[in-house]
Each structure stands twice: as C-alpha cells, then as structure tokens.
C-alpha cells in the first residue's frame, strides 16, 4: 500500500469504506509530515490536538459505518483567512497576529459538519495581497518542487501559497484557498496541483477576512480534479449571512465528471495569442492542451474578448479601492494590534503603520487615491464600467462556446531572488490570465498539464466556464489530467 499521505480524497474514501485504515492514522501521518517539512512554512498555526480529537470522532463513525460525507475523516489545511472559532486567525498580518475569532466562517463550518479534520491554518500573502506568498508576516511559504538544474527553491505563488504547498508537499489531503485575482489558480499552477475558483456567489464569504469583497471567492485546492469536486460539494451553497451568496441549487459535482468533452466547443482568446508567455507554457497551451481536447472530441475555436487589455488596470483599481475601505476597520480599537498614541488619531496612525506590511500599505494608498475626491470618477467609477464591459465580452462569447482555455500563468514559478528584481507592476502582470475571470465573476480551474523543459517546474492550464457551470470545467479538466 502506498503511504497514507499519498492517497487522494477519493482513495481515502475507499480505504475508510473498507476499513483498511483509520482517520486517526491518516491524521497522524499528515501531522508527522507537517513536522518534518516545517521548512516549507506551509502552516502558520498547526492544530494538532484538535485534529487528533476530530479524527477520533471520524474513527468512531467509520467503525459504525455512519460516515457523515465523503469529506468525513479527510484532513485538510485551511487558509488563515477563514475565521475559525477559538483558533487564531491572522490573515498573515502583524495587525491580526493574536486575533481569535468568536465565530466560524460558513465554509469551514460546512466542512466541519461534513466531518473534515482541520490540520491547521495555512500561510498566505498578507491579507491575500500578493502573488508569491512573499508578503506574509510569518515569512514566505516554500514550493515543495525545486528547480531541476540548480535545485534552487522557488516560490509557491500566492496568495494561497501555504495551501498550495500543503497539498503539493503531502501536508494535507486538500486545502481551502481564496481567490480574488488568481490566488487559488496561480499557486495551484506553480505547485502542480488542481485549484478551482467557483462562480462569485457559489460559496459563502461569511467569515472570510475581506480583501476585495466584490471579487473574493473561496475554493478547493486538491491533488486531483475529482478530489476538487468532492471538496467543492461541501463548500458550496446559499448562506443568508452573505448578501452576495446566490440561492441556486448545488449539484453533485462528481456526477458525470468522467463524461469527457465530446461535442464541446472550447474557445481560445485571440487577444492573448501574442502575449509575452514562457515558451514551454505557450506550447503546453497551444499544442498539447489543444491536441488533448481535440483528440477527446472537442472543437477548438478562436474567440475575441476585445476589452481584455483593460482587465489588469481595472483590477488594480477596484481591488485596492475595496481593500482600502475594508482595511479601515483595523484601527486598534476592537481587535488586533494596538499601538498607543496621545490622541485617537495618533493611535490609529501608530497601530496601522506598525501593523501593516509594505504591499498592504501600497494597496491601501492606491485604493485611497482612486477613491479620493477628484479621482473617484476618473478611476473608480470608470473601472466599474469597464468591469461591466469585460463581463459582457465573456457573456457574448459563452453564447457560442462551452469553455474558454488559457494558460494559468505567463511563466512558471520563480525564485525569491528573481522576485526581488520585480517592481510591483511586473508582479501584477503575473495575474494577466486569472484577473479577468474574477472581474467577470466566472468559475475557473487550473489543472496541471506538463513540466517545463529545463527546470521541470509545473505548468497549469486554465479552463473558464459559464456562470455556475463548474461541472463542465471539471469534466474538461479531468480529460487534461487523464491525458498526462
């Protein structure tokens, strides 16, 4: 038998059903791995005692043949952006480094009700702002996969970098991420795992520490496409505590997941054909992925998304604007860090200056600027309008095609040293394929397709679907996964 921590969620289910091993044994194996791989810095907080206690309850249910769901007894990591009752939740920020939420987020609550075991809270970019997990107050997470030529460590991507490292490094069977501009899909691509950003409104945002509320969405990060579907089944659903949660039926996403892509029409955006993309990634997309899907019976067509060129600028106005407003609550009064001052204003100033890191401050500054008198119309309102145009482009295209396919990232994972030569804009350009999807509120997955030719680093393909049509995305991702 392979190692317990190598098993997929699906395989864990088979093992539990046959009573081949216990949930407590699986949990213990994961906790041992976490301990042995602390150099990856995948977790900010490990909740070993709680995890073992939860696993014993799963053992009892497995023994009695009364498992709660397919997530019962499955040990997972939880991005440290989800509020977890009585367990420290930091958003990887100094300003929240001792915050203990009095309540549970809806998504984690659903997973707990389904019997999932929480191994701990995973590392991320501070307040989910970053694309390499380099902005965490608790230090960067490290990609378990190294460069082949010089064995150098590379970044996990971000912001859900710790979640990605936990799954890729055998430190969790699956992990929870959030995605505002690519924060699930990009780290999934960098670490060679599957990551899904559901449609905006599919999973509740209640209890997720807000970055840009109109774009934030929770999603699963797993070893396989099918695991991703299983986990999503226990995350999705209407929640009256989130005013943007959509009251729509949740299908069983594993149903028909092996149906293939025969007869599907899949679009390739012509505006992205001449983007500055790494050669291996370009080939994986235009040659390999196209061939796999064609061989499986799909039709590949060129499509046009004329306003795509405005997506990054739109995102880097809207997201900082919302962030500057959302992060106004961190003032030292009700929770988090407090740095005293002579006056109330001084206390605010001292607390925020000491509590936020460089990238968070940069985005608060840009957000404050685009919302300030004199610039509000030119930047913020204009960006809202362009967002509408971008979504309209996608809706038009989806009248004709079932899916849109692009790479997930323009380049594979880079080293920390390389990232130091990037200015903020170079870093923002990493999000070119992922950001438009959040603006359009659509669902999208990143699925591993190949390794780069020289450095053997993972490459991800992104599949984008219609509103609430995660099922079709999963079917096509399964075809790509199976063809490797």
């Amino acid at each position: 038998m392979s190692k317990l921590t190598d098993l997929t969620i699906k395989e864990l289910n088979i093992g539990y059903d046959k009573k081949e091993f216990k949930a407590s044994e699986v949990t213990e194996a994961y906790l041992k791995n976490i301990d042995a791989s602390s150099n990856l810095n995948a977790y900010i907080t490990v909740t070993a005692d709680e995890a073992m206690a939860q696993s014993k309850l799963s053992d009892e249910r497995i023994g009695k043949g009364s498992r709660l769901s397919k997530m019962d007894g499955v040990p997972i990591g939880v991005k440290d952006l989800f509020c977890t009752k009585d367990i420290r939740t930091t958003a990887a920020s100094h300003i929240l480094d001792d915050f203990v939420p009095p309540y549970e987020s809806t998504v984690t609550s659903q997973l707990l009700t389904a019997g999932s075991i929480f191994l701990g809270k995973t590392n991320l970019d501070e307040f989910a702002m970053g694309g390499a997990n380099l902005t965490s107050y608790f230090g960067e997470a490290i990609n378990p996969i190294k460069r082949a030529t010089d064995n150098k460590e590379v970044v996990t991507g971000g912001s859900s970098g710790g979640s990605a490292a936990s799954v890729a490094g055998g430190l969790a069977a699956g992990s929870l991420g959030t995605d505002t501009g690519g924060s699930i899909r990009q780290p999934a691509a960098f670490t060679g795992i599957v990551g899904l950003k559901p449609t905006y409104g599919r999973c509740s945002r209640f209890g997720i520490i807000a970055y840009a509320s109109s774009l934030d969405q929770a999603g699963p990060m797993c070893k396989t496409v099918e695991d991703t579907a299983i986990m999503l089944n226990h995350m999705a659903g209407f929640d009256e505590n989130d005013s943007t949660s959509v009251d729509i039926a949740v299908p069983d996403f594993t149903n028909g997941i092996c149906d293939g892509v025969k007869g599907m029409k899949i679009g390739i955006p012509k505006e992205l054909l001449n983007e500055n993309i790494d050669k291996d990634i370009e080939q994986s997309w235009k040659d390999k992925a196209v061939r796999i899907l064609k061989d499986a019976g799909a039709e590949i067509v060129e499509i046009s998304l004329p306003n795509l060129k405005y997506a990054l600028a739109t995102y880097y106005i809207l997201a900082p604007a919302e962030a500057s407003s959302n992060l106004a609550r961190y003032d030292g009064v009700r929770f988090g860090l407090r740095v005293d001052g002579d006056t109330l204003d001084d206390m605010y100033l001292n607390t925020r200056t000491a509590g936020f890191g460089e990238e968070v401050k940069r985005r608060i500054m840009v957000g404050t600027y685009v919302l300030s008198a004199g610039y509000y119309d030119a930047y913020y309102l204009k960006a809202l309008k362009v967002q509408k145009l971008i979504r309209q482009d996608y809706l038009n295209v989806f009248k004709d095609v079932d899916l849109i396919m692009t790479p997930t990232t323009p380049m594979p994972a880079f080293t920390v040293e390389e990232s130091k030569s990037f200015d903020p804009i170079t870093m923002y350009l990493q999000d070119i394929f992922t950001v438009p999807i959040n603006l359009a509120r659509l669902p999208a997955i990143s699925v591993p397709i190949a390794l780069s030719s020289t450095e053997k680093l993972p490459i991800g393909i992104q599949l984008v679907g219609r509103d609430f049509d995660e099922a079709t995305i999963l079917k096509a991702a399964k075809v790509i996964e199976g063809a490797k």
Partner: protein
Amino acid sequence: MDRKEVLGIAKLARLKFEDKELESIEKDMGQIIDWIDILQQADVSSLEENSSDVEAGLRVREDIVKISGLSKELIRNAKEPYESFFTVPKVVD
C-alpha cells in the same frame, strides 16, 4: 504624483511613512497610476450611467431585532476593554 499628494493620501489612509519609505512609495504609486491610466482609453459610452454590475441585485434582510448575546466574546479581542466597553484615548477635554 508628488510628495505633497502622497502625504495627503497617507493622512487619509491613516498611515505614516519614514522619509526613505516615502521615496519608494512615491515612485511605486506614480508607476501604478501611470499604468492604470490605460483605462481612460476604454470606450464605455455604450453603458448606462448606473455603474453597478450586480445584475441579480443585493438581497436585504428583514429588519428584525435579534439578541446575539455575544458581547463578552466580541470584546475578548480588544486590547484595553473596560467592563463591556471598548476604550480609546480621550477625545473630549
């Protein structure tokens, strides 16, 4: 983006920067603002003035008084609580 403008924004955002930090934030913000300026080229004349993209509309909840009974738990994370109150530096002489 000049120094005066950056300091004005920082004041609004309740953030303080050392002189050295100011140089880099001034440079970064200038670059970012130049970069997002591409948006001015986008033709939005086809859209109505209402800029909201939330087609489904936001739900509003019923205006019902609920007793959460959470005050003790909610105050637990405050640094300097007094009984069931949050405290701040004196604001009135």
